């Protein structure tokens, strides 16, 4: 399967694909691209930016902090950077989890997406200390400032 498909075109399936033999209706492409079949997953890959969906992993920077929530501007969704000026707004609430910057999502209200850091590998990727230096993570919940050596509490991420 190396040929391109267009929106509306049935995807040519290999015969070992379960429903191809079961006489089901065809699968119709909705994107321009080369369909790829990996085990039970049939996909047309694309690297175009898209809005966050439930279970997307996002990367953003905190724009506003309050005791109850942090607002962030989401700039990367599932590893695909969004064009400048087209960031989505996300909100991390204090309820349910620990500290700052977040990387995962649920569909929020009209204005923003609800983001959480509740998974083990999600959390702060980049933080600046009180002295204004980029901090280094030392454990999953603390980071050290290279200049003053002080520990600050952050829930650190563990990016792959």
């Amino acid at each position, binding site marked *: 399967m190396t040929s*391109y498909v*267009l*929106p*509306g*075109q049935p995807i040519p399936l290999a015969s070992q694909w379960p429903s191809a033999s079961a006489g089901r209706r065809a699968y*119709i492409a*909705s*994107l*321009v*691209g080369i369909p790829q079949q990996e085990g039970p997953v049939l996909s047309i890959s*694309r690297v*175009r*930016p*898209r*809005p966050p969906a439930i279970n997307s992993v996002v990367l953003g920077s905190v724009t506003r902090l309050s005791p109850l929530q942090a607002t962030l501007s989401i700039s990367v969704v599932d590893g695909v950077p969004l*064009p400048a000026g*087209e*960031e*989505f*707004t996300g909100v991390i609430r204090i309820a349910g989890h620990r500290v700052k910057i977040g990387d995962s999502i649920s*569909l929020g*209200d*009209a204005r923003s*997406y609800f983001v959480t850091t509740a998974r083990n590998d999600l959390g702060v990727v980049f933080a600046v200390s009180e002295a204004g230096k980029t901090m280094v993570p030392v454990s999953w919940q603390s980071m050290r400032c290279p200049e003053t050596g002080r520990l600050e509490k952050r829930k650190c991420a563990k990016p792959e």
Partner: protein
Amino acid sequence: MALDRRRINGPEESFPPVFDSDALQWKLEDARKDRSPDDIRPIFLQPGLISQANGSAYIETAKTKIACAVYGPRQSKNTTYSEMGRLNVEVKFTPFSCVRRRAPMRDAEDRSIAVAIHQALVSSVRLELLPKSTIDIFVTIIESDGLDGCVASGSVAASTALADAGIELLGLVTSCAASVVGKKLWLDPTEEEARLSKGTLVLSCMPALKKITSVWQTGEMKVAEALGCMDACQEKCTEIHSVVAQALLESAKI
């Protein structure tokens, strides 16, 4: 007409020079000028011309020249929560697009074309996958030769631009115009021909799925004529579909 004080305004009225010409002195019995009744003007289509847009397309059919840019999906601003995405179509005429100069302001004509293009596209876009988001489509008419041609070419360009932007579509939309002149049926009318005709009809469909997305009829037409127009348009849409498909495949392979 309102005056826009933020711009350098040209003379309030301007007229094109009038040349002695063999201007249209058609009679209804006359045959069509340079093509047969069921011929459409040749189409040039190029996706991905505007680099800063997420997706774009440029279409040229004889004297009709349209550029279309797609931005988004981006987060909807100032709107209430919606499960479905929104499709926002804006049409702009360049000042030099028509025979008479157009003021650089939006008017009712732009909006009616925008509504027609929106209607042609909206059922082909999988908006249910884009909650809380907006897709912006900007259609710039660089040169216009008949409103019906603009709607048809604009819809084709916009659908191509959407596919170029990687937005999920149920199928590619193609569109074709037809007019009833006298007792005959002329496809893809120019501005002169449209002026001569009793009524015009623009049909948009997804040939891959054999689904019609919109029919836009103006003027006077008998039922049989309207049905004849729709059949002829649908046939041409299949031909236009292969032009669009080829253009998209060529741009995808680069």
